[in-house]
């Protein structure tokens, strides 16, 4: 493969990374905002949170992207395609993330909240100081899964002129006609990216587990090595 073709793949890889990281960061904000809103006693906040979740889980990122880039300009809104890509992916993954946040919050034992009430914390202090720090430990593994899904989901961005890794792969495939090698390379590249992301999430999991004074759950290698006998 020529250096230029390789450069396409590399650029696609970077674009995919940019999209994934950008959408993950923004999606995290949406997740927490909507997830916490759905646990609020305020019916309006709850409603807004629920609507966001249901709407954006239901509409696929691809349709959102199309609207953002090809329909919004008619309403006088200019979105840079990259920014549109990040926003659409973030809105979509954020809706899934919000369910994770809600699940994490609900899983914190009621007893912890009661203890916080007994110490007269305000509602927001309860959330900030007691519930969230414990809930985050539970949110991390599903967040890790979402991150991998996001990584793979970025490949829809090609329809709005964002040349991501999959699209770069298609370019190389068209240029060389060599489908098998291109798809093998894509498999390997995505797997490497996924392993990197998973490792980072696992490291964070360990830190959080330590900050709760728990033994961290064994990682993949530990699980493979130390097969427990019943």
């Amino acid at each position, binding site marked *: 493969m020529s250096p230029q073709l390789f450069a396409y793949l590399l650029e696609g890889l970077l674009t995919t990374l940019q999209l994934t990281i950008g959408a993950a960061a923004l999606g995290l904000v949406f997740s927490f905002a909507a997830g916490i809103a759905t646990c609020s006693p305020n019916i309006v906040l709850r409603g807004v949170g629920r609507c966001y979740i249901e709407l954006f889980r239901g509409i696929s990122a691809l349709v959102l992207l199309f609207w953002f880039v090809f329909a919004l300009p008619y309403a006088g809104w200019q979105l840079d395609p990259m920014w549109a890509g990040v926003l659409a992916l973030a809105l979509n993954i954020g809706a899934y993330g919000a369910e994770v946040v809600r699940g994490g919050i609900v899983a914190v*034992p009621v*007893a*912890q909240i*009661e*203890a*916080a*009430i*007994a*110490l*007269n*914390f*305000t*509602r927001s*202090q309860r959330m900030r*100081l*007691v519930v969230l*720090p*414990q809930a985050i430990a539970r949110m991390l593994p599903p967040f890790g899964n979402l991150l991998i899904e996001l990584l793979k989901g970025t490949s829809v961005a090609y329809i709005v002129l964002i040349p991501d890794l999959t699209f770069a792969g298609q370019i190389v495939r068209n240029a060389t006609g060599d489908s098998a090698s291109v798809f093998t390379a894509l498999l390997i590249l995505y797997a490497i990216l996924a392993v990197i992301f998973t490792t980072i999430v696992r490291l964070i999991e360990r830190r959080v587990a330590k*900050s*709760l*004074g*728990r033994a961290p759950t064994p990682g993949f290698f530990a699980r493979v090595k130390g097969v427990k006998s019943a």
Partner: protein
Amino acid sequence: MSQPATEAALTSRKDGQFIHFDKVSKRFGDNVVLNDLCFAMGAGERVTLIGPSGSGKTTILRMLMTLMKPDTGTIRVGEDYLYHEERGGKLVEAGEAHIRKVRQRITMVFQSFNLFPNMRVLRNVTEAPVHVLGLSKEEAEERALGLLEMVGLDHKIDAYPSQLSGGQQQRVAIARALAMQPDVLLLDEVTSALDPELAAGVLDVLRDVAKTTDVTMLCVTHAMKFARDISHRVLMFCEGRIIEAAPPEEMFDSPTHERTRSFLQSVLDET
């Protein structure tokens, strides 16, 4: 005989009425747990609730701690109603701010400790004083260290709760509650999750608290010797009503009520 205990015994024998339950009722579905309950405690009084399982002891403590609302009736703490505000001479339901203000005088220690697992011991004790009482970090830590020393855990300030035994956790929980300098301390079977030797340590700490402070204590316990040592008054509950109320010596040595006798029998028997 199954008449309620006499009015006199139901009311505080110390100075006035600091906590006052007036016709408090609570039901869960069809299950009427408390029915028009009235009772009062004086400031600094220490009262023990005893009674069979499901008689509503925990419910009373949880209502005082505002973890659970009564269906009807009022609860007064000091001059304020806990769930009501007086507005234009009428009692109306209180807002969050009012409840928080009244609740500040009360705190509770739970059967299962409920320490915050995400904070080390010291922060468990300082967190509320800093964020609720507005103490500086230094003041709060000084106060916490004093209390942790009192409960014999000043060497564990950097441990996480999961690294402590149950008895140690419960002692931290007591220190955490005391750090709020509450007027009222609620204790719900604080030793029943512990084995006897560890329980002994916790009960010793609470004896100290009773002796050295004048905090108002309302506790549910099956540790009869402890109840005898620290309480001014023991209330026997049965089916959501107080069927007997007396100082501990009277209650344990010459219970008047048949149900009380059989209850005390079974508790004392099995050890």
